[in-house]
């Protein structure tokens, strides 16, 4: 795919929706995906494979509940193994959705319209995967409710000064608000699905789900205000959630964690990994379902640029970590920094540098950025890189801290890998169910765009 001419000529709006699209054609082609299931073989192949991996997740969790967290590689000193690495990775991926739907909505970036529904769904499923990890890492997950303030007979409440307790509130709020935001956005489209469904059964299902939406002027009057306000609320929420995750580390006294750069650097990393995951998923789906008219070359180009910008903020974060370690003059800080680069986990560190810093630099060239396979491969690299980043942060700081007598080496076990793989399967399975049964692009918003263009002609 060549970079389009209009891009250089500075006509961005025309590039967001292909020529000849009308409200009717938009509705027809987007709703056809859930109604007609145009690519059944592709859908079954991916969903089937993902479902098998979900079974692996069930087996891993079952064995975990029988034997306890000892089946993982965690021990002292590395008590936060894969579970926390995966948690931070997934919650980071979950950030692109709300960033795209809320922050870009408030900034009047119309290009968000084609991808916001899909990325919001991605957010929900990523948060669902993320939420599994801290719970199973508790050791006794049946006591999960102890994390909440409730009138208990033990007279014991959570420690509200702890970032780990903040995290409980942040992640559950984020999950709930993302769900509400996504569902509110879906309501008009569910009404469209009700009116286009071919069988009475589906008409009933969509009719119930849309809560009787009928597009009344009175509905829109309240609805549009609510939607923009939810976006306004979700925007600082995105920033707060990963800041708090960053504080989980920064408030601990460990060398390599105790740093003020963590919250902003974590937020940038989250958006970085979120955009790379969006590209990883959107590129194949767009090709298979023929959505090039809605998710145009310009959309991919803009996402690539945001990804690159975030990549540079993350790179600055890495630089800052090393700089402060050196400037602090603290022997332990300096040791941890050096240990990351040349210690036992150095291969992970260098792989991280290649994935997160080197790989995205190819996107400077408009030709390479416009080449979809290159963009896809770079996005894959960044996905892996962001996982490695969390691995390096969690493991290298923990395995050698202030007391050399308690140093140790962490090895992940089969069950660590199977749980990680299992959540990837769960994520894909949920995403494919979403693609199969719900419109993956917001029809009502694209219709607005199409109607506006028709009127201006």
């Amino acid at each position, binding site marked *: 795919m060549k970079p389009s001419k209009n891009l250089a000529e500075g006509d961005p709006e025309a590039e967001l929706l292909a020529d000849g699209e*009308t*409200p*009717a054609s938009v*509705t027809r082609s987007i709703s056809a995906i859930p109604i007609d299931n145009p690519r059944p073989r592709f859908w079954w192949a991916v969903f089937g494979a993902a479902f098998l991996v979900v079974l692996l997740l069930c087996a891993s969790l079952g064995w975990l509940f029988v034997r306890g967290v000892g089946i993982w590689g965690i021990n002292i000193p590395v008590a936060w193994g894969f579970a926390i690495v995966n948690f931070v990775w997934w919650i980071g991926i979950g950030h692109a959705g709300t960033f795209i739907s809320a922050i870009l909505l408030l900034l009047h970036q119309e290009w968000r319209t084609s991808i916001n529904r899909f990325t919001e769904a991605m957010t929900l499923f990523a948060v669902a995967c993320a939420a599994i990890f801290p719970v199973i890492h508790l050791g006794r997950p049946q006591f999960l409710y102890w994390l909440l*303030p409730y009138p208990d007979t033990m*007279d*014991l*409440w959570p*420690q*509200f*000064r702890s970032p780990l*307790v*903040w995290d409980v*509130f*942040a992640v559950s*709020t984020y999950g*709930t*608000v993302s769900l*509400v*935001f996504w569902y*509110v956005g879906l309501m*008009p489209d569910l*009404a*469209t699905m*009700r*009116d*286009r469904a071919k069988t009475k059964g589906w008409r009933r299902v969509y*009719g119930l789900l849309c*809560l*009787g*939406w*009928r*597009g*009344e*002027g*009175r*509905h*829109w*009057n*309240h*609805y*549009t*205000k*609510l939607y923009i*306000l*939810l976006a306004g*609320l*979700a925007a*600082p*929420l995105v920033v*707060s959630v990963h800041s*708090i995750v960053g*504080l989980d580390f920064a408030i601990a006294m460990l060398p390599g964690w105790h740093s003020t750069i963590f919250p902003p650097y974590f937020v940038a990393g989250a958006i970085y990994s979120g955009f790379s995951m969006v590209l990883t998923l959107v590129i194949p789906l767009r090709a298979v379902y023929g959505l090039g008219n809605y998710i145009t070359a310009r959309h991919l180009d803009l996402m690539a640029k945001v990804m690159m910008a975030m990549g540079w903020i993350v790179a600055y974060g890495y630089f800052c970590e090393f700089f402060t370690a050196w400037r602090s003059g603290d022997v332990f800080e300096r040791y941890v920094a050096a240990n990351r680069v040349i210690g036992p986990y150095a291969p992970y560190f260098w792989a991280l540098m290649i994935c997160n810093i080197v790989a995205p630099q190819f996107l400077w060239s408009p030709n390479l950025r416009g080449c979809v396979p290159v963009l896809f491969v770079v996005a894959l690299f960044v996905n892996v890189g962001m996982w490695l980043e969390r691995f390096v942060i969690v493991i290298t700081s923990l395995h050698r801290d202030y007391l050399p007598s308690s140093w140790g080496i962490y090895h992940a076990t089969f069950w660590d890998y199977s749980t990680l793989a299992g959540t990837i399967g769960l994520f894909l399975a949920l995403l494919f169910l979403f693609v199969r049964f719900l419109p993956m692009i917001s029809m*009502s*918003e694209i*219709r*607005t765009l199409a*109607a506006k263009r*028709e*009127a201006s002609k």
Partner: protein
Amino acid sequence: MSGAPFGTVAAFGDERSFLDAIAKAQKAGFRRIETFTPHNVEGEAALLRRRPTPVSWIMLAAGILGGAGAFYMQWYAVHDFRHLIDVGGRPVDSWPSFIPITFELTVLTAALVGTAAMLWLAGLPRLDHPLFGSAGFERASQDRYLVCVLAEDPRYTPAAARDALLPAGPEAVNEVTK
């Protein structure tokens, strides 16, 4: 289906004639007009003189209550002797550490109450409506813009409503019964 009239509905293919029809119906003296559109049409609310939605005020109030409640919960937890967790003798009133949870619960209550308020104000969920039975209504969620002169308007007669809507050039005009 009691057979009592609900109103007269006209369907339009584009926003311009739809807005034109509202203006024409108002000119004919009708005040009770409702619209059904596949997306929010700019200018419709102003034309029908809709009052600004109270959703924003409701959300503000809910957010303040939620935030104050969250802060009070944490303040209570450290001042109530039973729930105090003393870590290394740190000060009891460490209010800055209560801000994150206060913020999260502010957002949570505002979002949930705001959504409930939107549904309440819009009269949803409502699973049946006279218009669902009318011919062509399924297009209102896709690509047609409907103007409905309601039967509750004192001037309403099917013929008068039809006469008011026809000059704007609708694709179809139907009478809908309850």
